[in-house]
């Protein structure tokens, strides 16, 4: 890339014709604005009063700007690292796969779409209701697979009935039970659709050597008699019935498909309690766009977009790693992990640094995703500098002095990269 000697001894006006249009545009819309922003950042909202560095002080004292700064810091540390890490893993894993191209296309595809479209896509993914949002649908499915479904979240004791709801969510029959005396435990308020698969409730057997009973949904269309098992009334299966004496569980049983349960004779004289875990509200997944998770959730969507970028660059670098070096290490007995850790990563280190820095500069300016994804209730929690600048200068804030200060701060943060680029270019030119 030697700049070399120019071939053409050009006439000055010809040079001007080639250069001026571009330089004028750059001067007016890039260089001049930098100078103006620096100047403007020293003045107040109206633009008339000189305030020195007050606007910059405000960056570090104003709560919402400090929050934006903190979020930007999280973004800059987390997003490039995760995206580059995933890119590296993808690039290495696909190295010897025949359909690598197809895989890379899929991962890289989000790069082609706008951040607005990505934002809409992820709003759909992060929808709170597990019946509609993919993220929570997956989360609740996994959760329920491991912890078991709570069977009757809506069931309640009848007000003024024999059973009372306890603070911990369990239901207690205050009157002690005795063996041979069938116990009726009626519940209400289970919505009809949930009862569709349930069997008809059966009367307890009344076995004299045990405590027997039935838990059922004490309601028939058109009324029915309270506290008696009317025909057609449905059983509530799978509820844990505990016999409690002096605060200790002495026996427990689970209701069968017909709602009946049988406790051993030890339960005689104890109180019956229906355990709370049958009645707890179902797990509804995470509140992705709530105040705590909103930034990680948006970073997730960013990683979805940009991991492919890291992957493609790293894969190109990987192709330049000499096969013989890797083979030699393998022959020496190194396993794949050691080859990766000791040879591949060190050889790629300069490239990984370039990818990281690129993503950092990109993340510094992150705007669209943060503007689009969070609902207005948590936009403040997701705030970043670029968004704050926009709101401050063109939205509700109305203080272009502070807006300019944010702009200058962003510029200061990319200066090291600018100098790095220039130094490298000069070195290349001198060669």
């Amino acid at each position: 890339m030697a700049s070399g000697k120019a071939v053409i001894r050009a006439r000055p006006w010809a040079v001007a014709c080639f250069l001026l249009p571009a330089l004028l545009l750059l001067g007016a819309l890039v260089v001049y604005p930098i100078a103006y922003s620096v100047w403007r950042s020293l003045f107040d909202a109206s633009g008339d009063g000189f305030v020195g560095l007050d606007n910059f002080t405000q960056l570090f004292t104003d709560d919402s700007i400090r929050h934006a700064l903190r979020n930007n810091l999280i973004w800059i540390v987390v997003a490039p690292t995760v995206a580059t890490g995933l890119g590296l893993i993808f690039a290495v894993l696909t190295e010897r796969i025949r359909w690598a191209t197809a895989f890379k296309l899929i991962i890289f595809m989000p790069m082609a779409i706008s951040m607005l479209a990505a934002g809409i896509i992820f709003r759909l993914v992060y929808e709170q209701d597990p019946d509609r949002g993919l993220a929570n649908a997956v989360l609740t499915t996994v959760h329920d697979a491991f912890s078991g479904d709570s069977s009757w979240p809506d069931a309640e004791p009848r007000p003024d009935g024999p059973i009372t709801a306890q603070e911990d969510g369990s239901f207690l029959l205050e009157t002690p039970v005795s063996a041979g005396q069938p116990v009726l435990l009626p519940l209400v308020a289970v919505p009809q659709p949930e009862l569709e698969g349930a069997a008809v409730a059966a009367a307890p057997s009344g076995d004299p050597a045990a405590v027997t009973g039935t838990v059922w949904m004490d309601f028939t269309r058109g009324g029915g008699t309270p506290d008696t098992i009317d025909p057609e009334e449905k059983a509530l299966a799978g509820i844990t019935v505990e016999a409690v004496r002096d605060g200790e569980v002495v026996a427990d049983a689970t209701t069968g498909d017909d709602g009946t349960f049988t406790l051993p004779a030890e339960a005689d004289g104890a109180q019956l309690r229906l355990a709370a875990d049958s009645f707890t509200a179902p797990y509804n997944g995470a509140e992705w766009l709530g105040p705590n998770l909103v930034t990680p959730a948006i970073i997730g969507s960013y990683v979805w977009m940009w991991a492919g970028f890291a992957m493609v660059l790293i894969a190109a670098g990987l192709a330049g790693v000499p096969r013989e070096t890797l083979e030699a290490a393998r022959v020496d007995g190194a396993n794949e992990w050691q080859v990766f850790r000791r040879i591949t990563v060190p050889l790629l280190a300069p490239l990984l640094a370039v990818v990281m820095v690129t993503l950092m500069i990109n993340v510094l300016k992150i705007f669209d995703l943060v503007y689009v994804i969070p609902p207005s209730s948590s936009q403040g929690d997701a705030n970043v500098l670029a968004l704050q600048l926009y709101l401050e200068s063109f939205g509700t804030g109305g203080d272009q002095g502070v807006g300019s200060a944010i702009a200058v701060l962003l510029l200061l943060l990319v200066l090291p990269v600018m100098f790095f680029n220039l130094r490298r270019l000069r070195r290349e030119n001198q060669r």
Partner: protein
Amino acid sequence: MSATTLTAKEPEPTGTAADGAAGPPRRSLASRAAAFAASGAVRVVLVILAVVWLLPTAGLLVSSFRDSRDIASSGWWETLTDPGQWTVGNYDALLSNDTFTDSVWTTVLITVPATGLVIILGALAAYAFAWLDFPGRDWWFLLVVALLVVPVQVALIPVARLFNTLGIFETTLGVVLFHSAFGLPFAIFLLRNFFAEIPRELLEAAKLDGAGELRLFTRVVLPLAGPAIAALGIFQFMWVWNDMLVALIFADSGSPPMTVALQQEMRQFGSNFDVLAPGAFLTMVIPLAIFFAFQRQFVAGMMSGAVK
């Protein structure tokens, strides 16, 4: 940033030669079986990853074909087992909505000139930087490279003021100029590096034939620059097409481009995915088509533009 940084550095000499004595690699049956199992596991992981990466977009695509009641009551995956839910009603509504169809036109009116202008102005300047002799050439080029990483945010307030004075605030022209200015450093950088690789003899021969600066540019340099211009054009086109921030501030709010029009829908209703999903998908169609048609050029532009 440039392709030169992407080639991994020369490998340090390792003990390859010395280890030659150890003979060819011998692998036991067990270790080969383990390797086979491992590569099977890798395949499974990759398939899962590919599915995970595709699902969000699939969700948008499927949702765009469901009516608002279905969207509000159940997940898009239920449509896969209930084909009766499929409908093109959302697209019908959107395409007969003048605001939206106008916004498509506005997007084209912004993107095409902004791409063309960057290519033309960038190529002219890059040619001067690569082959013409003028005082302070290297310094001017350094300045351009320095501007590569300047965030657009720095220019929002000053340019808004400037455009106001010039009377082009909230006009398509203003958006085009803004995008062109911020596309230029990268365009000049990319094309200048490409032009500099053109063999000197070609230019010297043409010069002996009496060609001037302009003729050298149009007859020798430009015909050879196809790949670089394609990469740049695709990159810039995607960049402008997908932009929301610049359009949000500088575009005519009465007839905004697609991204802004869609964003405004978002503000008004909250979660009206029956409008947002097909709208978002329509904004994606052109970039995706270009992406699949010109993957190689897109990746090339991406790589050389890494630092942008």
